[in-house]
């Protein structure tokens, strides 16, 4: 069965510290991979996507993600978080924009 797992429901990180959010998936073929961010009062915003090619993908707001085929993972990273990064982050996989399978999300809390 196709699925996306984000193992961490909540993550708390100090401002200025590094961040890694985990995403593991189960999918028949190599999917397209996405990370979205959802902030209060704002819609889901695409941070980055992987279709093919270089497995290290750069996104907006200083985020990057690495696709590891052998581990079926697409983890999101940021070297230094800012208080404005507090939000909920969703990993999604699929081959078409109507077939995306979404994780349950990871809520990022920033400690001052």
């Amino acid at each position: 069965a196709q699925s996306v797992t984000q193992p961490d429901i909540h993550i708390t990180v100090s401002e200025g510290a590094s961040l890694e959010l985990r995403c593991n998936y189960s999918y028949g073929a190599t999917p397209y991979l996405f990370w979205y961010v959802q902030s209060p009062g704002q819609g889901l915003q695409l941070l980055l996507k992987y279709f093919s090619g270089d497995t290290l993908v750069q996104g907006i707001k200083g985020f990057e993600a690495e696709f590891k085929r052998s581990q079926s993972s697409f983890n999101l990273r940021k070297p230094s978080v800012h208080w404005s990064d507090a939000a909920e982050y969703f990993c999604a996989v699929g081959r078409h924009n109507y077939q995306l399978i979404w994780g349950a999300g990871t809520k990022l809390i920033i400690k001052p």
Partner: protein
Amino acid sequence: DAGVTQSPTHLIKTRGQQVTLRCSPKSGHDTVSWYQQALGQGPQFIFQYYEEEERQRGNFPDRFSGHQFPNYSSELNVNALLLGDSALYLCASSLGGPGTGELFFGEGSRLTVL
């Protein structure tokens, strides 16, 4: 450049009632998708409209229906509301029909069913 706009932002209904949610896509977009996001969950795909027709549908009952207008705006209708329909309903627009076009999301309409 206006993004995706949804209305209303919040609404409360009682079981058995009907609700209509509205979505205006991002300027230039011709495809509208609807999602249901329950508390603590990721979005679940309901359906996608392109050229005024439902092109793709997720695993939702017929109580969920929609419409797309010539100006590409869209409505989501839910009949015979159940308590379990309480959720954030998200509209996303994209370009070029079902495919790999990037999804742009609105802020959502939060529906509470009592």
